């Protein structure tokens, strides 16, 4: 009897632990946000209830949430691909922006007679450019051991500089004024799924990418090997996995996903590229990947959660005067506590005794 019950209890405990691991950063973030709300004399419960209503209360609100979650699906996967191999890529933001510009460029510069083939062409070009962009730090890390955190962080600023220059110079739209490229052709725009909301075909592409990531990471040899590199480099080398090749491969994959994400945001949401294209989707994607512990399901939940926060934040500001910045407070706290090792306090206390 006990022999049968034991593994089950173990599994239950493991699930509980994992669930707690997922919820812990978010709980802390809600506590922090509550303290701030209480400090300014607002009822946190009312605020959070309002936020839930505003993000999931009706079909329209749900589609707004999913629309806000769309770019995060891509940046979350792009981050997770690298993180699980122990490659600390913080350059998803840059690749996303580069992908957005490249996608939009195909969308408005080619002849409209390409018709609907513009969409795959734009996505392909963006994927190639995103991959090339992150190939740089990948190569530098694999070959010269150049710290990827710094190189990708610096490349983010370079990407912003280059795209900022292009949309204010060579690619500036002549008719619509400042800081934007011309609109992409109508055939190149991703269809809206539930008008009047801005939910667009990019969400479906994101789900496909997410599913592909889920299969790749759990069902293929490459996916397994790349996770192994993240878990134990020496062991991986001993069993014949090439670490430099894995590093470059996951960087390229990350660039492809981020590039497609940027292009779908350009083609589906804005229909062009504009200065300030990404309000930090790459960094929120990092929070999503960390919160979801690099699993496909976790990333989906994380992206929807942050999408809900973003879409609710705007309307909560309208209804209750609570500044939109509460969303940043929650996001920052989640990021910080997603990397805190929960068990460590208890462990150390035990050891010292």
């Amino acid at each position, binding site marked *: 009897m006990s022999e049968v019950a034991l593994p089950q209890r173990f599994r239950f405990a493991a699930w509980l632990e994992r669930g707690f691991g997922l919820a812990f950063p978010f709980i802390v973030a809600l506590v922090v946000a509550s303290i701030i709300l209480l400090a300014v004399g607002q009822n946190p419960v009312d605020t959070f209830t309002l936020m839930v209503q505003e993000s999931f209360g009706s079909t329209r609100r749900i589609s707004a949430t999913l629309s806000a979650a769309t770019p995060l699906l891509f940046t979350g996967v792009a981050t997770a691909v690298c993180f699980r191999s122990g490659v600390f890529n913080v350059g998803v933001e840059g690749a996303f922006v580069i992908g957005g510009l490249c996608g939009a460029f195909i969308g408005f510069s080619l002849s409209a007679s390409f018709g609907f083939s513009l969409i795959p062409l734009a996505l392909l070009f963006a994927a190639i450019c995103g991959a090339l962009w992150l190939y740089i730090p990948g190569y530098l890390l694999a070959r010269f051991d150049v710290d990827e955190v710094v190189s990708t962080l610096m490349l983010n600023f370079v990407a912003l500089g280059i795209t900022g220059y292009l949309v204010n110079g060579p690619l500036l739209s002549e008719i619509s004024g400042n800081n934007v490229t011309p609109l992409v052709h109508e055939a190149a725009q991703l269809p809206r799924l539930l008008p009047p909301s801005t939910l667009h075909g990019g969400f479906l592409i994101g789900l496909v990418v997410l599913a592909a990531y889920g299969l790749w990471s759990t069902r293929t040899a490459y996916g397994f090997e790349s996770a192994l590199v993240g878990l134990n480099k020496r062991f991986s080398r001993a069993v014949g996995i090439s670490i430099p090749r894995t590093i470059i491969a996951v960087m390229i994959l990350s660039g492809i996903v981020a590039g497609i994400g940027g292009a779908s945001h350009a083609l589906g949401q804005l229909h062009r590229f504009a200065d300030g294209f990404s309000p930090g989707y790459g960094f929120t994607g990092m929070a999503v990947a960390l919160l979801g512990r690099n699993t496909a399901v976790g990333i989906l939940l994380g992206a929807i959660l942050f999408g809900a926060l973003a879409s609710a934040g705007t309307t909560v500001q309208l209804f209750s005067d609570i500044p*939109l910045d509460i969303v*940043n407070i929650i996001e920052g706290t989640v990021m910080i506590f997603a990397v805190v090792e929960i068990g460590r306090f208890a462990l150390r206390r035990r050891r010292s005794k």
Partner: protein
Amino acid sequence: MIIDQVLAASIALTTPILLAAMGGLVNRQGGIVNIALDAKMLAGAFVAVVVSSATGNWFAAILAAAFVGASVGLVFSLVITRAGANMIVAGLGLNVLVAGVLGFILNWFYDSSGTLRLQDVALLPHIFGDGVKDIPIVGLTLSRLDPLTIFAWLTVLCLPWALANTRAGLRVRATGNAPKVAHAMGISELRVQDGTTMFAGFFSGLAGAHLALASIGLFNEGLTAGRGFIALAAFYFGRDRPVTTALVCLLFGFLDATQIRMQTAGLPPKLIGTIPYLMVLVALCIAGWRNRRTKDQLA
């Protein structure tokens, strides 16, 4: 005339980067890469404006800014050293969190989105006044010299000595370079790291105070404009050596000061703005290439 102005602007624009870079450099020598310098600068700038307006005293303002920077640094450090958080993610998270908190405060208490203008903000004084203005070339720079700039450059002069010869300096370097040795010597690495992160916060707070109080006297959400990351670039490029890093900061300050002039000469400012970051990439590549060559030779 142009040389005077460029020199004065370069020195003024170097100061905040230099202060933050000195803090980050010590932090990195102690083994922590501080990605959150920008957040602490922003917090310092905000507090400096508020305190300066409330007290009318610039010294109280910069002290408060440094204190807040150090406190944020301590919290950040505890999360890393005691709770085992990854320093990069925690740093990026802190940047988001601090921006959120400041935005919230601005919105809620000052009913403003983005900019804080207060009455009677005391600016940093000019030490030599206008009397020295007539000295050729350096006159304008000298007449605008503020205490924080002098403090920053004094730090540059003192740091190499302090890191090489004082007990604290040696402990910091031991902790960063050989944590196990430091541990064996009975140095508490965690405490040293907390100390260096507070030090970095202190200097970043001062950097923020300089940004806000050197000439404009107001706070803006985009005030730092990524200068914390430029400082990071500077001490990476300067390989954690104070004097080299200071020279790199000066170069970045010069680039910043001449941006507008270069723009009129036909060079796009956005592309010029990427130069510091590209320089770091190149420097990292050269360092990596060199390491690899020596390794190959040994093998």
